[in-house]
């Protein structure tokens, strides 16, 4: 059964309109005065000057973490490239001089146009080498080529990791937890 909507039949006072209009003017003026003395109701953030902090879980631009000596942490195990649903990670591995490290990426490229910022690479990584926690929003560029972030690019916004290679955390004094 259809719902019957009750209508408010305008009485004479409403139809005369003048009183209702004056009431409206009163409401508007009250809000005006209220906003003159402090903007309690205004939610606007003045963007370039004021910024709201991103949530802690926000996934922004990727960064490649470094070892304590500044080298890239990545061991080119390809787990992130395998996990990536958008197929946007390209890694070319090479042998490292240090036998403890074995491999490192000569090229580590992320096609930011393809990336969906899902964070699977971050979860797949066994060495805490890639993170999406830089807090940088995806950046615009003039050409498509600029949207390929290379290894140096990614390391430039990186920092020494607080994790040990293999999984445990370093002691606070030892680490360079800079973020």
């Amino acid at each position: 059964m259809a719902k019957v909507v009750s209508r408010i039949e305008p009485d004479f006072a409403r139809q005369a309109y003048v009183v209702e209009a004056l009431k409206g003017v009163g409401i508007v003026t009250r809000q005006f005065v209220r906003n003159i003395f402090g903007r309690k109701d205004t939610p606007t953030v003045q963007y370039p000057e004021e910024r709201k902090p991103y949530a802690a879980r926000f996934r922004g631009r990727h960064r490649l973490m470094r070892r304590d000596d500044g080298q890239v942490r990545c061991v080119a195990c390809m787990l992130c490239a395998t996990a990536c649903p958008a197929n946007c990670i390209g890694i070319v591995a090479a042998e490292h001089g240090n036998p403890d490290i074995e491999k490192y990426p000569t090229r580590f490229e992320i096609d930011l146009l393809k990336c969906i910022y899902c964070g699977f690479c971050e979860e797949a990584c066994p060495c805490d080498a890639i993170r999406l926690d830089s807090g940088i929003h995806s950046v615009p560029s003039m050409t498509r080529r600029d949207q390929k972030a290379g290894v140096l690019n990614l390391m430039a916004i990186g920092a020494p990791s607080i994790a040990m290679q293999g999984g445990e955390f370093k002691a606070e004094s030892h680490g360079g937890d800079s973020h």
Partner: protein
Amino acid sequence: MHITGNLLLDTILMAAVKMVGFVFVFVMGLATVLTWTERKFSAVLQNRIGPNRANIGKMRAGGLFHMIADPIKMLTKEDFTPDTPNPYLFRIAPVLALIPALLVFVVIPFGPGDNFQISGVDAGILFIFGIASLNVYSSVIGAWASNNKWSLMGGLRISAQMISYEVAIGLSLCGIFMIYGSVDLQQIVIGQGTTFWGFIPAWGIFLQPLSFILYLTCAIAENKRAPFDVGEAEAELTAGWWTEYSAMGFAVLALSEFIEVVMIGCLGTTLFLGGWQIPGVQGSTPGIIVLQIGAFILKTLILVWLQLTIRWTLPRFRYDQVMRLGWRILLPLALANLVLTGVVLAVIDRF
């Protein structure tokens, strides 16, 4: 050149000084400030920030520089002319809007005496009606020459609306003429200098309250501003009759709308709020005259504020509601007010 003794030249020079002082400094200045006020005011009462980006160096002054930035932008952007068979008519419409809007200030007395009225025309209010009614040509010609169906719809609505409300506004003011016995605006203001019942100033708003409401309603409708902006109606007709105007053409149309806001304020002050009169203050020393001019400006500002608030309070009337309000409510009320005033005046006269 002998200025002294040359009466004609003196008169012209005096008129020029008054015109520059009143029309170009006060009216145009206030209208320009209103382009900023309209946006900032509406922003504040709607919990928005409003214009605040235009700056000189570090100084932003609450967006006040937008009124300088706007003309610069309007002057430098493309002045688009639509594909119309009448580009000449299209160009002349903003001029036709601006000239009558400015011309009516000629008869407004903004202070005591002839020195504070650009021209003391005897038939002051009739002059205002005559000139102000030319405004409709601007909208209709502009709408028609735009060669755009939205504009044409807006123009049609405006022509009907303005002509309808002209009848009501004329009749609503007749009560004032009957009470003060003149259509000369200076005489009407002088007539409002007395008091009745000992303490209430004999202002038009106290003697003719209904007439004041009718005047304000009809005047806003004449000015085509919300809630009577059916000709613009951006939700239905894009921007209605001024859809095709850009750059300075648009700026002139917008400015003339604000000039009319000031005009409604000035005329309302003159007819209903006692013009330059301050209750209890009489005399003709320079100090008192300055005070009285200040009172005129203050009263005008109050009416301008009232118009802005109404514009941001009430939603737009539908077109049929506008016509019904004009012909079936305002016009009979104006007539009833006229008859009532006549009867009361006759009774007072007899006894």
